[in-house]
C-alpha cells in the first residue's frame, strides 16, 4: 500500500526507440500517424451515414472518453485512486447550467453568460474544486484516498438534493442552455447546412462539437503524459521520496494531477448535461452522478490499461458504448423486451460485461488492453510505444 495504486500495473516504459535518422520520420511513427488520421477522417465522415440515434450513442461514448482520459491520468499516471469522478461530473454539469442559464428564471439561478465561455468556466470551476481537495488528496495514499474521495460522491448527492436554486432539485431538474459557439447554435435552429445532401442538424452538430472536445482532451493528455508533467506524476507515483529528491514538488504534482483530472470530469459533466438536455440530480447513490458512474469510469480505465490515454478511449467505447449499442440493436432484433422486475436490460448486461472484464483484466492482463496492443505491435516488429500512452 505504500506506493501508488498503479505502480505494479502499468507496464514500465520500454526502452527508448532508436533515434530515427534526421529529417525522416521512422516508418512506424508514420504508420501510427496515418492510423490516427484515418480514424479521425472516419469519425468526421460518420454523421453523413449514421442516423441521429446512433450519433447520440456515439456522443455518449465520447463523454465517457473525456472522463476516462482524466481518470486514467490521475489513477494510472499519478497513482491516486479516486472514486469521486461522478461528483466532479455533477459539479461540471451544474457549473455549466448555472453560468449559462437565463437570468430571468425565478426558480433557478442563472448568470446568462455565453455558453462557450460557460463551458470553459465549468472546466475551471471543477479544476478549482479538485484543487480544493488537495489537503486530503495530498496527504492520503492508495485505498485511503479512494474511500476518502467516495465522500465527495455523497456530498454531491446531498448538494444536488438541497441546492435546488443551482441544480433544479431532484424532481424536476433544470434544462441547460443549448450550446452555441460565436452565435452558431448546436441545435436544429440557425442556418441550414447540408453536406453531400445530408442536413447538419442538432445530432450532427453535437457530434462535431463532442468530437472536437474529445480530440482536444486526448491531445492535451498525450502532451501531458509525454512531457515534464507526466514524468513528475510517474515519479511521484513510483516513489514519493525519490521524486522529492529529484526535485519534483510532490505536493504540487499530486494536487495538479487531481485538478487536471477534475477538470476533465467537469468537461464530461457539462457534456453529459448537454447530452441529456437536462441536469437532474440523483435521488439515491445510484444514478447519473452516483457511485455506479464512478465505478464505470474506473472500469473503463482498468479495461483500457491504467495510465494509457488511448486505452481510456477503448475502455469508454466498451463501457459507455455497450448499453447504447445493445439498446439500439434490441429495438431492431426484439431483445430485452421484458420489463419490470427481474428483466434483463441493456444496462444490466453491460454491467455484467464490464464487471467480468475488470476481473479478467486483473487476473490475466494487469496492463489492460493497452498492454495487449503494445505486445501486438512489438510482435509485428514495430517500435514499442512510449510511456504507456
Amino acid at each position: 500500500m505504500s506506493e501508488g495504486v498503479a505502480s505494479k500495473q502499468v507496464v514500465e516504459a520500454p526502452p527508448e526507440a532508436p533515434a530515427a535518422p534526421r529529417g525522416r520520420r521512422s516508418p512506424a511513427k508514420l504508420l501510427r500517424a496515418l492510423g490516427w488520421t484515418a480514424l479521425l477522417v472516419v469519425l468526421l465522415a460518420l454523421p453523413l451515414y449514421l442516423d441521429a440515434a446512433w450519433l447520440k450513442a456515439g456522443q455518449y461514448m465520447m463523454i465517457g472518453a473525456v472522463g476516462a482520459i482524466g481518470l486514467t491520468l490521475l489513477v494510472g499516471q499519478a497513482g491516486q485512486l479516486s472514486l469521486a469522478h461522478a461528483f466532479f461530473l455533477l459539479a461540471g454539469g451544474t457549473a455549466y447550467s448555472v453560468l449559462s442559464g437565463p437570468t430571468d428564471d425565478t426558480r433557478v439561478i442563472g448568470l446568462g453568460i455565453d455558453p462557450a465561455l460557460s463551458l470553459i468556466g465549468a472546466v475551471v470551476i471543477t479544476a478549482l474544486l479538485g484543487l480544493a481537495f488537495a489537503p486530503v488528496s495530498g496527504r492520503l495514499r492508495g485505498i485511503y484516498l479512494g474511500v476518502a474521495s467516495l465522500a465527495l460522491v455523497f456530498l454531491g448527492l446531498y448538494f444536488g438534493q438541497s441546492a435546488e436554486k443551482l441544480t433544479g432539485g431532484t424532481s424536476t431538474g433544470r434544462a441547460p442552455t443549448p450550446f452555441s459557439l460565436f452565435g452558431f447554435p448546436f441545435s436544429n435552429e440557425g442556418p441550414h447546412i447540408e453536406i453531400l445532401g445530408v442536413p447538419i442538424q442538432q445530432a450532427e452538430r453535437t457530434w462535431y462539437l463532442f468530437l472536437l472536445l474529445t480530440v482536444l482532451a486526448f491531445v492535451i493528455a498525450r502532451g501531458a503524459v509525454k512531457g515534464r508533467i507526466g514524468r513528475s506524476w510517474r515519479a511521484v507515483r513510483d516513489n514519493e521520496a525519490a521524486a522529492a529528491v529529484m526535485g519534483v514538488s510532490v505536493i504540487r504534482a499530486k494536487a495538479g494531477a487531481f485538478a487536471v483530472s477534475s477538470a476533465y470530469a467537469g468537461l464530461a459533466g457539462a457534456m453529459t448535461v448537454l447530452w441529456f438536455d437536462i441536469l437532474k440530480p440523483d435521488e439515491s447513490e445510484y444514478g447519473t452522478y452516483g457511485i455506479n458512474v464512478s465505478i464505470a469510469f474506473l472500469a473503463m480505465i482498468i479495461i483500457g490499461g491504467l495510465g494509457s490515454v488511448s486505452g481510456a478511449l477503448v475502455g469508454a467505447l466498451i463501457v459507455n458504448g455497450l448499453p447504447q449499442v445493445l439498446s439500439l440493436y434490441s429495438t431492431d432484433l426484439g431483445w430485452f423486451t421484458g420489463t419490470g422486475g427481474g428483466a434483463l436490460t441493456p444496462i444490466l448486461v453491460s454491467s455484467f460485461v464490464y464487471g467480468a472484464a475488470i476481473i479478467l483484466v486483473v487476473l490475466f492482463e494487469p496492463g489492460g488492453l493497452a498492454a495487449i496492443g503494445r505486445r501486438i505491435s512489438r510482435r509485428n516488429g514495430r517500435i514499442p510505444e512510449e510511456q504507456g500512452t
Partner: protein
Amino acid sequence: MNTFLQLVVNGLGKGAVFALLALGFVVIFKATEVVNFAHGSLVLFGGYLVVVTRDALGWAGASWVGILSAGLLGLLLERFLLSRPRHADANALALLTIGVDVIVTEEIVRRLGDSLPFIGEAWDAKPFQLGGITLFRTHLVALGVAAVLITAFWLAFKFSNWGIAMRAQAENREAAALMGIRSSRVTATAWLVAGLLAGVAVLFIATQDFSGAGLSRGTHSIALAAFPAAILGGLDSTAGAVVGGLVVGLVDALSAQYISFDFSKSAVFLVMLVVLVIRPSGLFGTRERTRV
C-alpha cells in the same frame, strides 16, 4: 433529553451493525492488505438467501443459511479469484473486488426485482417503552449480538491459534510463512469470517427499524457506510473498527435528527474526511513511515 437518549441508544445500535461490517473489512485487510469493495455484495447475498429459503425453512433456519452462505461466498471469492494471482499487487486485487461487487449486486438486485423484503422478523418493528423513551428492538438486539460476536472475535484473535497466526501474518508475512504458518489458510479464514459477519449484519440492516427499507440496492449503499467506519478507526486496527462503527452509527442517528435526514449520509463521510485530514491513517491505524 429523552429524544437525545433515544437517539444515542439507536445510534449505538446502528453503530454496532457498522462495527460488524467494519470488522470484516479490517480482518481481510490485516490478513491480505486487500480492501474488499465487494463487502456490500456479501451483505446482499446473505440477505437474498434468507429471502429465498425463508418459506421452506422458517425465518430462524433461513437466517442461518444466509449467514453461512455469505461466509461461503467470501471463502469462494478468496479461493477462486483473489488467491489466484499470487504476486498481484494488493491494490489490483482491490480493483478486482469492484468487478465482483458489480456482478453480484446487479444480479441480486435484478432477482429481487420490485420486491423489497424485510428480513428481521424476530425483532423488527416491535418497539417498546423503557423509562419514558421508545426503543427499537432491532437496535438493542444488534447491540447485544455485536457485543457477543466482537468479544468472541477478540478472544479468538488474542488466544486462538488462528488469531496468533493472523497477527503474525499481519506483522510480517514472510517471517510468518517461514515459521510454518499457512498463509493461505489464514487468508481464507479471514474472508470466511468477514462474510459471516456481513451475513449477520444484513439481518439488522434490511429492517424497518434500521433503514425503513427492505433488501434492495439501498442495503448495499448502507453497507458502504462501513467504509468510513473502517477507515475512521484505521484500516489495520480491529479496535478501531469497533470505535469507528459506533462513531458512524452515532453521527448518522444524531445528524438525521438535528440537521436533516438527507444530510446524515454525507455527515458520516464528512466526519471521516475531517479525521483523515488530521490523522491520515485513521484514529488507531499504524502510521506509515517513509525511509530513504
